[in-house]
């Protein structure tokens, strides 16, 4: 007898009904082809059977027949609207499509018809986690726990859901019950240990210090928490929080003894004594230094107790400490010594002291009678590391780069085989604006050690900067998979630096389609990373790694605030804004191809096809070949679809949106957000962007021109809807003083920052905003030329920006004049030369880099 309430059309005869259950099993075990055959068998007799239709659709989507499959899945739902199987299948298909909200709706439908279905509940609870609907996850897991109270994972899954849903108290009591109930835990059970550590974390987050301490001490005694270090770290923190200072201090000291290089332990130790390294009075500073002296005596070989005092001292005291620190680094030959100390350079006094000490070492090591040689009793390696350090030191300041370069010449004569020296030379030249020679030097470094991938990537990076995009890809290809192009392998490997460097290179070359292609790949990769969480919602509970899981969840929430996303999103949005402003850029992004270029392209395509075929042959003709997911074909290899997308501003808004609610510290993000918002006529969003930007850097030049633009746009608007106009009217005065005129505001800004190149250029751009490019041309050009005055501290980047502004926005006739003036202003640079001149520099460099050629060849060997 069929159960009551089941519609007649769903019931199958016994034979088919058994077959249907087989289908479900076959699907679970991924025997898709067999399952498909079984489906057809049933459908032959019962073509209107909804559940079988759905299953067939689901199986087809797994066999790369997505559209056909989806049709069937939808048909299945139509045929049997009250079947939980049909809705579940529909949900699964949405889930595979990353359409989580839709999938959850389907699950909700499915649960209406089978409210205690464990599989669906479990699936739904994990999807709720994925979309951060903690309330939903909590409810689903609560139901699950009631249905299966004997399943351990059910308890933990619910506890985590409580925790993330800010119901720590409930998480705590649930876990407490769980720990009481669980029986027969073997000794040293890692999984149980993880759960207890998680419970401890919950107690700690609840600030229930006494309970936490009791729990810790019990476990210290019974050894049931295996991660002893974590346990003792909690103990130290809890004792500190309880104000039991002496015991806490003992615990911190024990931790420091275990790992004397952990900054956190020293911070914890000090804060237990009420000392905050970031806020020291003179008296406490003396006490702190005394404490570190003690640690240095105790742990002479570790670095941290010697390094922290350098942050908190100054003057002679600093000098006394930094000298032995430097000496030790040079003797050990630590290549990262400079990188270690660079953070001290924000203090110019410390920078000067380090320079003095290092110059002293340099003189000491040199042979007094022959300054180009090392003294007999000194180590040549130490002398070399001294030169290396000083070269980096002088390269931090544009005015001393020539000193750095001459030190590097000495060092390279001394030891020409140390790749680091060539790298620093490349970096110094880069900072001097000589990107061409920089690239040649980085390539010299790479040639010394071809299997060093860091050198390889650096050299490619420097090539991208001078527009050698193809050459850079060839280099990178030495380390990527051989059966695909370097770019696609690096994208698969989620290599953000590559995507951004090449995107920047294409932007500079005006190939906006390819630039967008790379920048949007960054965005896509972040989608992938977010989707990767999906498996962990179930996996981490099953494996009991709850601490790591909770950490991951928090980390993922601010994932897109990380620098690569920011760089990619800002760069892409800037291009979209340019495309919106000037649609002719679409045409100019595609270079006119000559016949021979077309031929070359065809040839490349054929070669690629061949590679793919070979790869296919290589995998062999196994039976499940058809079931293996086929290599995804790139639908838009040249980014043309991205370039010609109908609404660039919408695209821009889309890439920027995920960052809006995160803590963004870069002003560039808010500037481009403004640019997008004002063009989309979203004036409140524009206002918000300006306020954020102002909070980051109130006198920024980019912000200045945006404020002008905002004021001008708002003034020109009539009848804004009332709530909006009120908000703007209230907020505007804090950005733009009511009594100012646009011109007056602009000149005030420049007067407030005399001699600042950024402000001068900002003022020139401001004129364009106020009067339009044609109207401002003469005056703005005049302002740009003020950059060249001696008293202006012009830097290379501003000069490049100014040049671009003259050329592209003002279309000024004096562009060339400015270019050659910059070239004279920065004699070391090559970036103001034309492409041909740069190529000539490179050829000449490469020739002179091979002094070998002038030597006689040894023929007798």
């Amino acid at each position, binding site marked *: 007898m069929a159960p009551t309430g089941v519609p007649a059309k769903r019931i199958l005869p016994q034979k088919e009904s058994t077959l249907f259950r087989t289908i479900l099993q076959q699907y679970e075990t991924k025997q898709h082809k067999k399952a498909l055959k079984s489906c057809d068998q049933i459908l032959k007799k019962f073509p209107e059977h909804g559940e079988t239709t759905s299953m067939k659709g689901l199986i087809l989507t797994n066999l790369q027949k997505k559209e056909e499959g989806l049709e069937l899945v939808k048909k299945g739902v139509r045929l049997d609207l009250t079947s939980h199987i049909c809705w579940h299948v529909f949900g699964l298909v949405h889930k595979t499509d990353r359409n989580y909200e839709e999938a959850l709706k389907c699950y909700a439908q499915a649960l209406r018809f089978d409210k205690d279905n464990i599989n669906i509940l479990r699936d739904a609870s994990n999807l709720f986690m994925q979309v951060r609907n903690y309330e939903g996850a909590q409810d689903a897991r609560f139901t699950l726990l009631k249905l299966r109270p004997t399943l351990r994972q059910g308890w933990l899954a619910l506890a985590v859901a409580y925790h993330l849903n800010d119901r720590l108290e409930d998480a705590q009591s649930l876990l407490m019950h769980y720990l009481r109930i669980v029986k027969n835990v073997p000794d040293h059970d890692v999984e149980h240990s993880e759960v207890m550590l998680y419970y401890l974390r919950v107690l700690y987050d609840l600030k229930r210090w006494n309970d936490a301490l009791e729990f810790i001490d019990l476990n210290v005694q019974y050894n049931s928490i295996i991660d002893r270090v974590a346990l003792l770290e909690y103990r130290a923190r809890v004792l500190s929080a309880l104000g039991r200072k002496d015991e806490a201090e003992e615990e911190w000291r024990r931790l420091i003894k275990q790992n004397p290089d952990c900054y956190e332990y020293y911070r914890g130790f000090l804060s237990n004594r009420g000392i905050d390294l970031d806020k020291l009075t003179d008296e406490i500073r003396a006490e702190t230094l005394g404490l570190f002296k003690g640690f240095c005596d105790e742990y002479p070989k570790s670095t941290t107790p010697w390094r922290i005092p350098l942050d908190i001292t100054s003057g002679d005291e600093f000098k006394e400490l930094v000298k032995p620190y430097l000496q030790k680094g040079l003797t050990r030959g630590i290549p990262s010594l400079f990188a270690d100390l660079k953070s001290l350079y924000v203090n110019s006094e410390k920078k000067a002291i380090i320079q003095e000490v290092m110059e002293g070492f340099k003189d000491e090591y040199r042979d007094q009678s022959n300054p180009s040689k090392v003294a007999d009793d000194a180590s040549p*390696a130490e002398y070399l590391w001294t030169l290396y350090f000083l070269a980096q030191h002088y390269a931090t300041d544009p005015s001393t780069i020539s000193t750095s370069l001459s030190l590097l010449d000495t060092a390279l004569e001394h030891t*020409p*085989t140390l790749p680091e020296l060539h790298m620093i030379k490349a970096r110094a030249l880069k900072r001097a604006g000589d990107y061409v020679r920089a690239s040649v030097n980085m390539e010299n470094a790479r040639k*010394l050690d*071809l*299997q060093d991938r860091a050198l390889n990537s650096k050299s490619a990076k420097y090539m991208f900067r001078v527009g050698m995009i193809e050459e850079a890809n060839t280099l990178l290809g030495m380390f990527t998979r051989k059966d695909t192009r370097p770019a696609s392998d690096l994208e698969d490997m989620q290599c953000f630096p590559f995507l951004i460097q090449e995107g920047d290179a294409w932007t500079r070359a005006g190939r906006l389609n390819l630039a967008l292609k790379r920048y949007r790949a960054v965005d896509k990769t972040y989608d992938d990373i977010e989707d990767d969480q999906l498996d962990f919602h179930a996996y981490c509970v099953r494996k009991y790694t709850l601490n790591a899981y909770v950490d991951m969840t928090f980390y993922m929430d601010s994932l897109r605030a990380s620098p690569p996303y920011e760089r990619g999103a800002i760069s892409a949005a800037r291009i979209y804004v340019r495309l919106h402003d000037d649609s002719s850029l679409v045409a100019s992004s595609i270079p006119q191809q000559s016949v021979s270029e077309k031929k070359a392209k065809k040839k490349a395509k054929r070669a690629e096809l061949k590679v793919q075929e070979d790869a296919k042959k290589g995998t062999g003709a196994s039976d499940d070949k058809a079931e293996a997911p086929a290599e995804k074909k790139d639908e838009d290899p040249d980014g043309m679809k991205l370039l010609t997308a109908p609404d660039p501003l919408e695209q821009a808004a889309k890439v920027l949106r995920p960052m809006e609610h995160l803590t963004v510290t870069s002003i560039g993000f808010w500037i481009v957000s403004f640019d997008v918002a004002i063009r989309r006529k979203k004036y409140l969003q524009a206002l918000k962007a300006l306020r954020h930007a102002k909070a980051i850097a109130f006198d920024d030049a980019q912000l200045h021109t945006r404020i002008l633009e905002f004021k001008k746009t708002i003034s020109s608007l009539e009848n804004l809807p009332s709530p909006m106009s009120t908000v703007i009217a209230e907020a505007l005065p804090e950005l733009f003083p009511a009594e100012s005129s646009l011109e007056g505001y602009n000149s005030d800004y420049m007067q407030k920052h005399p001699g600042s190149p950024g402000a001068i250029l900002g003022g020139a751009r401001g004129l364009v905003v106020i009067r339009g490019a044609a109207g401002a041309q003469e005056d703005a050009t005049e302002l740009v030329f003020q950059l060249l005055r001696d008293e202006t501290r012009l830097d290379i980047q501003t000069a490049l920006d100014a040049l671009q502004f003259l050329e592209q926005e003002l279309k000024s006739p004096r562009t060339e004049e400015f270019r050659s003036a910059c070239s004279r202003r920065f004699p070391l640079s090559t970036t103001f030369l034309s492409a041909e001149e740069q190529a000539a520099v490179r050829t000449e460099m490469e020739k002179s880099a091979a002094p*070998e050629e002038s*030597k*006689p060849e*040894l023929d007798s060997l």
Partner: protein
Amino acid sequence: MRTPPRISLSSITPSNLGTLRKLNSVIFPVKYSERFYKDVLLPEAEDFCKLVYYNDLPVGTICCRIERSGPEGEAKLYIMTMGVLAPYRSRSLGSEALKQILASAASSQKPKITHVYLHVQVSNDGAKRFYERQGFVELKKEEGYYKKIEPRDAWVLERKTWSDAPA
């Protein structure tokens, strides 16, 4: 106070060939042919072609080739180049490198290496003294050995692979 410097040797590979080229170009007055750079990568040469490191800095090189001589498959080891960057000389890098090469030669079975020899330009007294301290003796003077550098004559120095001579 100071810890003694670490001296170590590592094999030449296609990847670090650039370092070898750089060293050769700085240390020696002649240019080596592409043939030379091919030969140092031969599998049989691996134990006899090395970069020499001083505290992990590549500052020297020694490159030899095996020359079959006897009918029994016996062979001689010919030192093609040995050199150290100027600032690192007189710090035992050369003798340490040579010691290790001689040890490899002594333990080589296929082929058995009976002798180690080399050419030294007649103007290079320092080098000659160095090799003599290492147990090499002058066999003869080869006139006009060098075609493109002056002086053109060279001494041939040789020693047995196993010797009772110096420690």
